[in-house]
């Protein structure tokens, strides 16, 4: 494992990591450094080869859903052919999950790798426009740096498809695909209802390809080194490497590039049986440490505890914090970040958040837990987006994983001794429609 913060130099073999992040550590790569490390992009006059190679590589989306990348490209290409309409390609760098830092880190350190992938994807589907959509408030000056990176490429004539930079509002849902399309069309960054899928009709009605920033960076490397190289790390079913954000109790969060299938133990260290790991962030799953120590970082393994790799967020709160208080704070944030468009989410999430707070502060009533279970069921699958589903999954996993702590709270006690919040929660929530723009 190599980390962005330590950036230890490693041998240049196919299986060594990192592949995406520069080995020089924290120093951002400009065009020259990028070309020195990776060289030119291949097969630009045979754009169809990218889809074949992505299929052979088995690359899946690294934004959380793990959808096969080649299938998304094929769908957009087919829609464009059928409707004789040039598609639009969007690099999604808006990692709105507050606990995640991997796309921001990648865009800061290796913007050209993402822009290479954006270019290749655009050429592969015959797009005439490409957009890099990202938060610009997560890193000092990242917006300016990305603007510079795009200008560097224009100066050397690297790109055939012009790239525009677009800013995502600081909302939890702003990276959701339909919210992103709505925002780029000049509206608020709130989800819209499907069908039609955006691969059919997205931005301004054009077939639209949205790929996570990290997914595009992997594409840029698969184009250069081939699918066989990509598969030299990871598992057969889930090949390659992925960026993870790891927040351990004892230190600052760090971003690491690790192979799929890596034991969680080697990522988060040995944890005592009274601890828990949050896998996948605030739409993710709490897993007891005893289970986590036996699992590996791939969906096949995590399915055993109902968890998913997601966008690679792993959080192990310190033992002096109350997990219920932490979860209640995160769920309150999720409720406030609901776009409020769908009845079940609008009604359910605030009630779920309030009930969880009752439990956390030791004021739960006899029916509180039953209410929570029922509401979690009622909101699942009933929104235009998966915000209610993800929130319900997170809450249910807390009810199961922290059952003993809930019992303690019911008797007026709490195992937490520090009130300092550990899970990162943004302070501001949306008040008016302007906050979604």
């Amino acid at each position, binding site marked *: 494992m190599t980390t962005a913060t330590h950036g230890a130099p490693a041998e240049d073999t196919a299986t060594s990591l990192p592949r995406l992040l520069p080995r020089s550590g924290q120093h951002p790569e400009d065009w020259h450094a990028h070309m020195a490390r990776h060289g030119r992009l291949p097969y630009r006059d045979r754009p169809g080869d990218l889809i074949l190679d992505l299929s052979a590589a088995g690359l899946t989306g690294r934004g959380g859903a793990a959808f096969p990348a080649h299938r998304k490209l094929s769908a957009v290409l087919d829609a464009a052919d059928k409707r004789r309409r040039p598609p639009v390609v969007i690099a999604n760098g808006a990692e709105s999950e507050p606990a995640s830092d991997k796309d921001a880190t990648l865009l800061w350190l290796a913007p050209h790798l993402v822009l290479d992938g954006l270019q290749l994807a655009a050429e592969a589907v015959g797009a005439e426009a490409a957009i890099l959509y990202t938060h610009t408030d997560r890193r000092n000056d990242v917006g300016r740096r990305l603007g510079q990176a795009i200008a560097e490429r224009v100066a050397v004539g690297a790109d055939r498809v012009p790239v525009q930079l677009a800013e995502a509002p600081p909302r939890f849902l702003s990276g959701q695909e339909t919210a992103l399309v709505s925002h780029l069309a000049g509206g608020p960054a709130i989800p*819209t209802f499907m069908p039609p899928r955006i691969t059919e009709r997205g931005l301004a009605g054009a077939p639209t390809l949205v790929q996570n920033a990290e997914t595009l960076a992997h594409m840029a490397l698969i184009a250069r080194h081939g699918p066989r190289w990509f598969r030299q790390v990871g598992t057969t079913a889930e090949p390659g490497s992925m960026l993870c954000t790891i927040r351990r109790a004892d230190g600052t969060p760090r971003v690491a590039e690790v192979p799929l299938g890596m034991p969680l133990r080697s990522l988060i260290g040995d944890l005592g049986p009274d601890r828990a790991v949050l896998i996948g962030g605030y739409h993710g799953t709490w897993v007891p440490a005893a289970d986590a120590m036996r699992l590996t970082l791939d969906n096949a393994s995590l399915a055993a505890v109902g968890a998913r790799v997601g966008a690679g967020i792993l959080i192990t709160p310190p033992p002096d914090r109350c997990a219920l208080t932490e979860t209640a704070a995160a769920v309150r944030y999720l409720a406030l970040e609901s776009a409020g468009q769908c009845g079940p989410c609008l009604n359910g999430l605030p009630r779920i958040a309030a009930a969880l707070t009752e439990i956390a502060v030791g004021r739960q009533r006899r029916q509180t837990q039953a209410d929570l279970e029922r509401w979690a069921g009622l909101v699942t699958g009933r929104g235009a987006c998966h915000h209610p589903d993800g929130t319900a999954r997170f809450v249910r996993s807390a009810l199961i994983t922290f059952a003993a702590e809930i019992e303690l709270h019911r008797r007026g006690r709490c195992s937490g001794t520090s009130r300092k919040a550990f899970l990162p929660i943004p302070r501001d929530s949306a008040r008016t429609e302007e906050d979604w723009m």
Partner: protein
Amino acid sequence: MSEKLLVNPIECAGHGACAELLPEMIAMDEWGYPIVDGRPIPPALERDARAAVSACPTLALRLLRS
């Protein structure tokens, strides 16, 4: 070809007309929003399903060919 019911949860304002006209396939949750049975509509209920779709004041309910 069978059809299924699909509700657009953004458009749905919880008027409840659909659940009144097609209680066999649409229940109301405790907040007044429809819980729609997503299985193919049995032939015997097709008329009522169409009535429910046309009765929705916000045009949130539709039939989807499957």
